[in-house]
């Protein structure tokens, strides 16, 4: 029975083995269809970033030739990249989708949220997000989170039950067995669903290349006015940067993630094509969050703490 050396060199996969992208695509589509089959009011969180764009692409494929049976929800921080908002509105119109917007700016204007001293709005998204979920009575909320992004996310389930406060309790998660997802929930509770759980950043980019998916231009190298803060290049703009001590310069940069302008850093890059971006990521020695997200650097358990409060 011991096959100590028999398998080496004979590892030719059968012609019926799926490529890793086909396997990931098939799994994600299965997850979308499970939610459509079991929930009443699902919604896709859509930021205009590459992960949510890939999610929408997968949803379009999963239900074709019928339309996607979900609406979209964008949590608008008020500090968005204009190219991303333009992309969002164009996509919604093109596919005849319904878009809900939860606005951080409206919460600040109404005095329900207070601007943070550091100007970062990412953590402020949690309240508008959870209130929008309650208000619209969404029972399944798709997020583009991937387990490779961060150590707390590595512990996340594909179906993640949240209580009426949207809280995540990592010690009370349901075991996830086979492909049998358990979406049972009480009224007021909802389930966060992560169809890209098993994808890595590189998988996402390769899939974008294979499927020829259009992205907002900020993902490709372009010249932009930026300034340095905490070791990252931030976009200069009306959101509050730069301060007097910070100097603006024009650099050739691109973005690896798309979030709030106040905490999403750009990387120096001359990658203007998909091929070049993929080559750059394959060679990178930094994770996408480590390279470009200020909010994750706040503490060792920053992501876990935010997720416990209802962040996605």
């Amino acid at each position, binding site marked *: *029975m*011991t*096959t*100590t*050396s028999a*398998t*080496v*060199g004979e*590892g030719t*996969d*059968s012609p*019926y083995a*799926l*490529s*890793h*992208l086909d*396997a990931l695509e*098939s*799994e994600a*589509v299965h997850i979308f*269809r499970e939610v459509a089959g079991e929930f009443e009011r699902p919604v896709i969180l859509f930021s205009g970033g590459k992960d949510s764009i890939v999610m929408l692409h997968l949803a379009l*494929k*999963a*239900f*074709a*030739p*019928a339309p996607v049976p979900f609406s979209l929800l964008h949590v608008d921080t008020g500090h968005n990249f204009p190219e991303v908002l333009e992309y969002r509105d164009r996509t919604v119109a093109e596919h005849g989708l319904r878009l809900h917007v939860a606005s951080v700016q409206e919460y600040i204007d109404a005095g329900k949220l207070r601007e943070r001293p550091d100007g970062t709005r990412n953590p402020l998204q949690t309240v508008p997000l959870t209130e929008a979920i309650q208000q619209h009575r969404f029972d399944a909320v798709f997020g583009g989170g991937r387990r490779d992004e*961060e*150590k707390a996310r590595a*512990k996340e389930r594909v179906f993640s039950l949240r209580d009426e406060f949207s809280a995540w309790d990592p010690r009370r998660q*349901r*075991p996830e*067995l*086979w*492909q*049998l997802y*358990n979406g*049972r*929930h*009480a009224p007021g509770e909802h389930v966060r669903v992560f169809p890209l759980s*098993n994808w*890595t950043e*590189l*998988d996402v980019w390769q899939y974008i290349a294979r499927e020829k998916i259009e992205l907002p231009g900020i993902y490709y190298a372009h010249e932009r006015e930026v300034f340095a803060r905490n070791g990252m290049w931030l976009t200069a703009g009306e959101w509050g940067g730069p301060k007097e001590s910070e100097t603006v310069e024009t650099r050739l940069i691109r973005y690896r993630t798309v979030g709030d302008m106040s905490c999403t850093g750009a990387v120096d890059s*001359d*990658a*203007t*094509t998909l*091929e*070049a971006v*993929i*080559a750059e990521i*394959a060679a990178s*020695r*930094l994770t996408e969050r*480590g*390279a470009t997200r200020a909010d994750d650097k706040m503490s*060792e*358990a920053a992501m*876990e703490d935010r997720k416990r409060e209802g962040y996605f």
Partner: protein
Amino acid sequence: MTTTTGTGLTEQLSATTLLRFATAGSVDDGKSTLVGRLLHDSKSILTDQLEAVEAASLKRGQEAPDLALLTDGLRAEREQGITIDVAYRYFATTRRRFILADTPGHVQYTRNMVTGASTAELAVVLVDARNGVVEQTRRHAAVAALLRVPHVVLAVNKMDLVEYAEPVFAAIAEEFTAYAASLGVPEITAIPISALAGDNVVEPSANMDWYGGPTVLEHLETVPVSHDLASCKARFPVQYVIRPQTAEHPDYRGYAGQIASGALRVGEAVTVLPSGRTSTISGIDALGEAVDIAWAPQSVTVTLADDLDISRGDLIAPSGSAPRTTQDVEATVCHVADQPLTVGQRVLLKHTTRTVKAIVKEIPSRLTLDDLSQHPDPGQLVANDIGRVKVRTAEPLALDAYRDSRRTGSFLLIDPADGTTLAAGMAGDSFAAEAVKTVADDEGWDF
């Protein structure tokens, strides 16, 4: 422009397959070190992650970076220095992508190993070369056998501490192989390693000339991942009915789902269960491409020649090899919840895309993993117990034996009151049933 690699890179990166595997090992067998080394030597740990681990280690007063901090992602895990929950890791070589279910080794977390093993095609069981096969090793082998993980690797670790002696390895490999084979593990590969020194993990060891087999990574890269389609009966659980009812597609009615096993072909005669109605496959849409044949685990949409009443939860199978349906489920279960499972309890049973009401009629036995002894009529199962159950369902299920299909032979028991997943079920016989075999009833069970 950094396009010197041209299109070659994309092709090379996408021409890989995916292997899901799980690791199991006792607390001090060096599992974190092995995982850390696989990630590190395959260059999957990036600079900022390593820096974060170094900083966190310093803060704890440790001089060397503690690689376990890479995998222990939760506050409580880092505070207590133990792994509480399954975590998933991702790494890649040029030949393959890997999804690693990193499962804790504590006895009380049998459910976590069951969770990790349920989707794994390979399990790595770690043994300390100084201790050999211990109770925990037998538990890990038993769980891998019960979940029918197709490939098991025995990694005999800490060979550096037994002077890289071949007889030590050979004795452990022989004992483990005999034990695992007796439980029905189909393929066992034993590899002598030192995760700490790096012997036979990624690079072949210069200290063990006597070993002619693959390193752990080589084996992971080359083990076959897909099964022979001809020997698997096709099973297609209907997930969702696609009916656009638009001007462009007024009459389109497609059955969407993921093929659970085997292959479907256009023109094939099929039976829909549980109704038993028959038709012919008129088309298969593989996410945008019309195809003549599709196979597991592809997500597809199937159209039939006849307009039948089919909904989510139905199962489409070739007419010649459709499963029987039953309302009496006999299975081995692993109990995964804190609240117990008791005789007489009303539960929900989720099988493929179908969830039905059910009642626990009997719990004939509970299994002790240490020595595989049976305890008759325990009355209830509690967290991490493995036992036999008999369940009566409110509606018929098209259930296969787990030994024939991990996908259509598995199910969940769910508490209808609060939605808790109570147990992971595997239909039909297993070694957990051997000691309490009852006379086969004649109501359709043939496994």
